[in-house]
């Protein structure tokens, strides 16, 4: 089903009895659910864009590409740098802004400016009873009532079907630069990344590849802004990081350099794992614990983003990664693959009770993406 309007969507949900499998563009099939397909892709279009107020409002099915193109005309962008999952998950179709918000999709710049949830200003959605609800708005500072925008952001359609989202945007930058560290082991790289992020030089992307696209270990630190400022900060960062290993600097968008737009898209989209067999796990962790966490995994490959706070692990098929990690400060999500373990990180009992209680309130009949985000294995034992 592809409703054309919010009213039609509300009617569909109110009138159905069966489970619904809710999608935007269908490019991020993370986790397992069943039900009649319901896509928001036909509710599309930018409703309002005010460059001077740094805000854009769009219907949930609006293609991300359309929004990015519109923003580019005013030299602005979605600063949280949403990942494109198509390569990694082998999907086709058009990523939608509703999907980005529903899955709280962010990229490397999350470490500096915040995640999708930090840029989400308002939502309209239809809950599991078919009721149309709005929350937040289109202004940057808003503490009027509870923040259901955050609750919806990252709820994968289980609390309601998004119909419209409003987002804060930021100016695009004049120049991008990159400080590179070569040949570091994981633990040293993470110390270097922490030093960069703990400096006043505003790194906006901080990633480490034990095996880069050229096969060697590389640590990438992105700096953005006015050209003069980028050059200055790149030099300062290089001075700061020289003691960790061999360094180099790239300024400007070269064709194939690590620091290019292409290079950071490669980081963002986890392109290195795209055509590799194995399960893909996404781990949010305390950066200083990241190297020790990955050491015992037996992973085919790992890569670090967010200064070590985000670990991508390519695991042999069917590995229970959480079993290998043990308890840690963070969470792990199975992004690709079939393992006899929950897709989303199981919550401790009191939090699981809150989650279940909220779902019961927003979707009393349990028809929105049933099974998704719940503490049961993605595939039957």
């Amino acid at each position, binding site marked *: 089903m592809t409703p054309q309007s919010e009213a039609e969507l509300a009617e569909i949900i109110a009138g159905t009895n069966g489970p619904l499998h809710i999608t935007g563009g269908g490019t991020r099939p993370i986790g397992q659910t069943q039900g009649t397909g319901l896509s928001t892709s036909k509710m599309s279009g930018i409703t309002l864009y005010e460059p001077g107020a740094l805000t854009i409002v769009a219907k949930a099915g609006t293609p991300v590409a359309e929004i990015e193109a519109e923003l580019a005309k005013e030299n602005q962008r979605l600063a949280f740098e949403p990942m494109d999952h198509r390569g990694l998950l082998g999907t086709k179709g058009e990523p939608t802004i509703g999907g980005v918000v529903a899955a709280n999709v962010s990229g490397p710049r999350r470490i500096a400016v915040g995640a999708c949830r930090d840029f989400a200003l308002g939502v309209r959605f239809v809950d599991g009873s078919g009721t149309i609800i709005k929350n937040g708005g289109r202004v940057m500072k808003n503490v009027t009532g509870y923040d259901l925008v955050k609750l919806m952001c990252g709820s994968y359609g289980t609390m309601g079907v998004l119909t419209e989202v409003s987002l804060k945007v930021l100016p695009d930058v004049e120049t991008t630069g990159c400080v590179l560290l070569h040949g570091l082991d994981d633990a040293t790289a993470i110390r270097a990344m*922490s030093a960069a992020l*703990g400096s006043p030089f505003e790194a906006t992307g901080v990633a480490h590849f034990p095996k880069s696209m050229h096969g060697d270990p590389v640590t990438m630190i992105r700096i953005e802004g006015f050209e003069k400022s980028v050059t*200055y900060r790149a030099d300062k960062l290089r001075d700061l990081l020289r003691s960790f290993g061999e360094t180099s600097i790239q300024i400007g968008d070269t064709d194939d350099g690590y620091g290019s737009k292409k290079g950071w898209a490669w980081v963002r989209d986890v392109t290195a794992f795209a055509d590799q067999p194995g399960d893909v796990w996404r781990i949010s962790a305390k950066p200083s614990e990241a190297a020790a966490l990955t050491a015992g995994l037996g992973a085919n490959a790992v890569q670090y983003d967010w200064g070590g706070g985000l670990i991508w692990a390519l695991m042999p098929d069917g590995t229970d990664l959480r079993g290998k990690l043990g308890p840690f400060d963070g969470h792990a999500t199975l992004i690709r693959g079939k393992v006899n373990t929950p897709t989303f990180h199981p*919550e401790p009992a009191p939090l699981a009770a*809150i989650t279940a209680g909220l779902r019961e309130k927003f979707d009393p009949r349990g028809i929105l993406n049933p099974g998704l985000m719940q503490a049961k294995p993605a595939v039957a034992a």
Partner: protein
Amino acid sequence: MEMPAPSASVLSRKDKIVERLRAVLPRDAVISDVSETRAYECDALTAYKCPPLCAVLPANTEEVAAVLKICHEMGVPVVPRGSGTSLAGGALPTADSVILGVAKMNAVIETNYDDRYIRVQTGRTNLSVTGAVEQNGFFYAPDPSSQLACAIAGNIAMNSGGAHCLKYGVTTNNLMGVTMVMMDGTVVEIGGAHLDAGGLDLLGLICGSEGQLGVVTEATLRILHKPEGARPVLMGYDSSEVAGQVVTDIIKAGVLPVAIEFMDRPCIEATEAFAKAGYPMCEALLIVEVEGSGDEIDYQLDLIMKIAASHNPVELRQAKDADEAGRIWLGRKSAFGAMGQINDYMCLDGTIPVSSLPFVLKRIGEMSKEFGLDVGNVFHAGDGNMHPLILFDANKPGDLELCEEFGAEILKLCVEVGGCLTGEHGVGIEKRDLMNVQFDPQDLEAQMAVKDVFDPAWLLNAAKVFPLATSQSRRAA
């Protein structure tokens, strides 16, 4: 502002309630003497006062859990309190409530510079969080103007902002994890030293929930390295329309200042009389601050000055050193105090789309004449967060009511142009009965359903946020 009638049953059981609380807390942590509970009768919205049944000052999470468990069992309402600086009446007690103050809980639990966070007990004041890390060059970004006094607990409850949000965001963007005690005494850990939620974003839900979902006892906060430097420019214009256009042009030019502050003529006049900062007398004054190294600041200020100059300013002044920067900020930082010298004032904080600024200022000016009350505007222009200060005389019968009526009209106007009732102070009791202006019944129902999950008996700060009539059936149940 109406508050629900206290429960006769709770009032009649005061001795038993106090006795049970004394059994789980140190002697001096339970305040029940009528002369002493008066200290907790109001917050910074001083027009409304009501001493609580008693006040408790627990020292840690376990004591908070013990208190809440007892209150839950005995059906006693609880009002959490940070430092009591709420301008919205967020910590206003009812006569049948226990005030749960976190003031004793002010310890730093852990600082971690590699992972860039600090973990504190939530009674710690906002400024002293920065105080704990600044020797290492770090700071905690959200900076509400009450930062010397306000507690992190209250910052989380209200999702507090500040002058530097344009670049650094508000509390919710800088909060990584909490320890929270639910009304039934259950202790939950949400988030931690990692980023983003593995399931539903409960942390985002709790931040800004005005102490209605639980009592946050510990918090993990993101800390950042201080910029190398910061410098402001001051610019004056003949009309607020032009100043509004300057703000828009700066933002569209791709510069992202850390702060853009706006003051109108009544506010400039009051401030000059009080602080003598040397501000130009004009219709609209902007203070724009940028950060970075000396060269970076020069470059950005150069761009900003060019934009400013192209709009025919009556004055354009760039700070050359820390002393001049201090003078530029002096008036802005004294603005509230200056207005307070003239009369009592009510401070609102509705937010509007930046594009509506000139229209809203014009309408506020017209309404000021209609109501016969003066109003000064000083606010965070970059993010549209207004702060109209309405002057009134608390000793003049009917003036407070007139002021509240005027305030309500301003907030309705904010909603009308696409904004909201409150950008950083919270709803509390002050804006509670205006929630119907911004939200439809089903929007409020969805929010109240959240409270049902966390606090089914509606014992925690229940007379706030939602219009009393709207929450009546839940509170009475």
